[in-house]
């Protein structure tokens, strides 16, 4: 077994698997002597695992790494709030029956019946106080984006995924659903067939009910998913008889204002191009994660404004994106690398770029080559 290390990105780590990468590694039968760790850079965790792998390989610390991302957003638990947790803690410390009884009597229905939703907590920014949808609203207002252009963008995503079903299937491993195993999940279930602009227009703004333009229809879907890449140096891959899918050429992460986190890609792409001495027009295929339609369009505007260039929508997210597929946060970055490289192979292209906005106010961009 040549794998030295397994690295997985994940945002909401399950309480029963503190280091989920290690659990994955052991469950798939990688020898226990090998290493594994889990990391998080919020929405870019799946990219961070790949770039960390590249760093470790370049530093000579690892030769072969499995770098991936995993997220089960349907399994994020509910929590007792702080007040209730405190009473439970006191209860566990109580020695005598009277003490225990006294603790019990402190419970009120609100403690037990109003749990905090882990998913909501995870999708909110504790520093700026906004949830992710609200940060998209900030951008929509700042850049003057209309509801119609956001809905149109969303519709394109659905249409492109539908058209690319067969292509996407190539990168999907069927998953049987326990305990009956009667059904195997073989394709993404977020896509709405026959979706129309009218359907999208009917939806009410979700994050700013009165004046907003961001709806659940033009936002990414909450979903489960996992992805993994086998990474090593070119010479080693060739000596082992593998044909590389592609090369990770350069990457960058930038910080932005947390309340405008969706704008991250605009700055990350600009910086990466500068770093690699490339122009936007050199990029033959582009993926910008669709956290929100508003956020991607805002990035386009900002890049034009900064003179980085105008994005050609014909090469952007050609097989659709997270609005139709869903955005399992820790996974998406990793999947974008895979999806882009496979499409570059189909089209026989040389240079591609993926970029993601990151909750908490960051942007990530990776330059891929083949």
């Amino acid at each position, binding site marked *: 077994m040549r794998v030295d290390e397994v690295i997985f990105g994940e945002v909401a780590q399950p309480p029963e698997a503190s280091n989920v990468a290690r659990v994955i590694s052991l469950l798939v039968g990688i020898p226990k002597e090998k290493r594994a760790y889990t990391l998080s850079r919020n929405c870019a965790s799946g990219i961070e695992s790949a770039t960390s792998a590249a760093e470790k390989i370049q530093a000579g610390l690892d030769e072969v790494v499995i770098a991936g991302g995993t997220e089960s957003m349907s399994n994020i638990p509910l929590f007792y709030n702080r007040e209730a947790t405190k009473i439970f803690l006191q209860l566990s410390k109580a020695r005598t029956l009277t003490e225990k009884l006294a603790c019990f009597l402190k419970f009120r229905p609100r403690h037990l019946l109003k749990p905090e939703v882990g998913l909501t907590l995870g999708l909110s920014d504790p520093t700026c106080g906004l949830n992710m949808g609200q940060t998209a609203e900030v951008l929509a207002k700042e850049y003057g984006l209309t509801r119609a252009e956001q809905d149109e963008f969303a519709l394109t995503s659905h249409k492109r995924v539908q058209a690319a079903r067969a292509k996407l299937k190539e990168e999907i491993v*069927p998953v049987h659903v326990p305990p009956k*195993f009667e059904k*195997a999940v073989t394709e993404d279930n977020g896509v709405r067939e026959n979706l129309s602009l009218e359907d999208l227009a009917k939806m009410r703004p979700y994050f700013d009910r009165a004046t907003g333009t961001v709806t659940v229809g033009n936002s990414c879907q909450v979903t489960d998913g996992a992805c993994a890449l086998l990474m090593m140096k070119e010479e080693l891959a060739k000596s082992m008889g593998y044909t590389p899918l592609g090369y990770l050429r350069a990457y960058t992460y930038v910080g932005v204002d947390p309340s405008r986190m969706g704008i991250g890609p605009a700055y990350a792409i600009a910086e990466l191009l500068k770093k690699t001495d490339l122009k936007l027009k050199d990029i033959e295929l582009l993926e910008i994660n669709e956290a929100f339609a508003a956020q991607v369009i805002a990035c386009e505007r900002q890049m034009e404004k900064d003179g980085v260039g105008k994005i050609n929508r014909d090469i952007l997210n050609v097989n659709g994106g997270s609005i139709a597929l869903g955005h399992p946060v820790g996974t998406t970055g990793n999947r974008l690398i895979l999806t882009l490289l496979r499409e570059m192979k189909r089209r026989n292209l040389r240079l591609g770029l993926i970029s993601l906005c990151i909750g908490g106010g960051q942007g990530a961009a990776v330059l891929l080559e083949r």
Partner: protein
Amino acid sequence: MAMTHNLKLRFENGFAVVEFDQPDSKVNVLSSESMAELEGILAQLRARQDSEGKALKGLVLLSQKPDIFIAGADIKEIEKISSPAEAEQKARAGQKIFSALEDLPLPSVALINGACLGGGMELALACDYRLAAHSDKVRMGLPEVKLGVIPGFGGTVRLPRLVGLRKGLEMILSGNPVSAQAALKIGLVDGLASSQRLLTEGMELLSKMKGKRRHYGPKLKGFSDVFLDKNPLGRALLKSQTQKFVWKNTKGQYPAVLKALETVAGNYPAARGARGASDEAYQREAKAFGQVASGEISKNLISVFYMMEKYKKAKWVEAAPRPIGKCAVLGAGVMGGGIAQLLSHRGHPVRMKDINLGALGRGLRQAWDVFYGAVKKRRMRPNQAALGMGLISPTADYSGFSNADLVIEAVVEDMKIKKIVWKEVASQVKPGAIIASNTSCLSVTEMAEALGAAPERAVGMHYFNPVHRMPLVEVIRAAKTSDETIATLVEFSKALGKTPIVVKDECGFLVNRILLPYLNEAGLLLEEGVRFEKIDDVLLDFGMPMGAFILMDEIGLDVGYKVAALLEAHFGERMKVSHIFKAIHEHGWLGKKSGRGFYIHERKKRRPNPGVYTLLPQRPESAMGGKEILQRMLFKMVNEAALCLEEKICREASDVDIGMIMGTGFPPFRGGLLRYADTVGGAKIVEALEKMKEKTGSPRFAPCGYLVNLAKTGKGFYR
């Protein structure tokens, strides 16, 4: 004082330390010799204690063998017992020595570092205190009933005294040992310590306890525990309920279990809580031991025990085995899913392939049900099940097969399909990977031809259904199978916890070839007008784990018919399939899986299916007696087994017996099919077969040359 071989006495920090270390052996067993040595040491200690005015602080007993305290009494000595009186006298002698240990005027502790079974357990029970190691190797129990005897050195008195009547009965009647953790929980041991610190902590325990044990009361929790232990009514209830349970499970065929129940329950009120139980209790135990130890059943069970031990270790060929890591299973049916579960449970990553996702789902379900069924019964922890499921990866193509060291093919029993699949596999695996078929009767040699090259890696690996429960694996040597391949699969089977037998590649191999004629005979008897319920009752009374028709319902009447038809195609007239099997499966009654076969299967219940008789021509009910029914079925098997020996399908009679016991559940207390045949006698069997042949006019009863020869020379299969 005479020199001692097995036991060594030394003195340390004011304690007497007795070390058990049987020379030239990996284990310690209690033989007459070591018992005599113990008696001498105890007498010496007693004299010293009396003369020096209680100078010693205590006695520590320990083992010098890693992971073994004392594995039990010397079975060879039990085997040699020829009369109840001799057995009783032996038990009395042992009891006397252990009572001397219990009555020694200094406190004693047994340091249990591993297996502490049978006589070894009884020795530990005679000590004042017991300290066990924190180790998975610690197993404490009284497995005597498994050899058809009962504990004879005071175990039936001292174990319930310590752990209570309910727990005591459970341990003695089941014969199942408990772990160190469980032993602590039920009060069987007084503490646990790390293996390295056992001696130190044993001495500390004795110092702390300041003298002999004063309290023997079991740890009782809750009302029912107390009621069943302290109240005469409760005890009577426990006894009668246990008796019912034992009858239901053994049908009275394991007299030692009933004898043990009688002895334990009879002694209990007297033994409860008392330091020195009355000698009457021990006398009763010795008498009961005498009654079972000299019996036929015990002799048979002991011979089966030896046989199993021998086959667990047997090497079969001289070649060195290769290690097996990753595996692949082809076909995700009941057998494929079951095999994948077995492999992954033992830590092997498994690729499971079938033609579509639906089929793969059923294979995964099969494995899942076994894993989580065990979790539900608390035989496995949830994490073990999750890990096991994780190691099985389904695939609809051959990806990953190139990593496999072993491919096990378990597709449908159709030579055409097998050959196609084998050809495909050959192009996917790495050179040197072993390719095994889980076929139950098809020719592995023929499959090997499809490989194209390197037929030495082709072999049969025949599991029995359900895979996780049946302990036998038939390793089938095809025409060109190499010794290395055989050695690898033999060792691999053992590593999976199975017992392998190596057999020749001939239709039906060994077990099915002998079993199918037996099942077929049941069908033919039914056609002759014998009611199938009656046939099953006769077989159950003989000790078969289930009747022939119930067994066929379990196997599945479609699968059973297919195998029977293949055997008929190969062997002809001798194995002509009974019409009823064709009729019933064509009627859509497939047995348990379809809810209806010879029996109607309802939730946890079954009753005979009267519809079966409508499939048969009208015929008056036969008046055939149980003995004749039994002879027809058993002697048919004996004859086929003899033919297998004649044709060298296997090497010797014990191959047949181990195969039938472990592969079909032939009753171990009968000693095995051929050992049973020996007790009947070859001449008598031949005579009976000739009579059957005459009566039925069928050549299937013609005794084979091997059997006729035994009858002529007066020899047995074993002698």
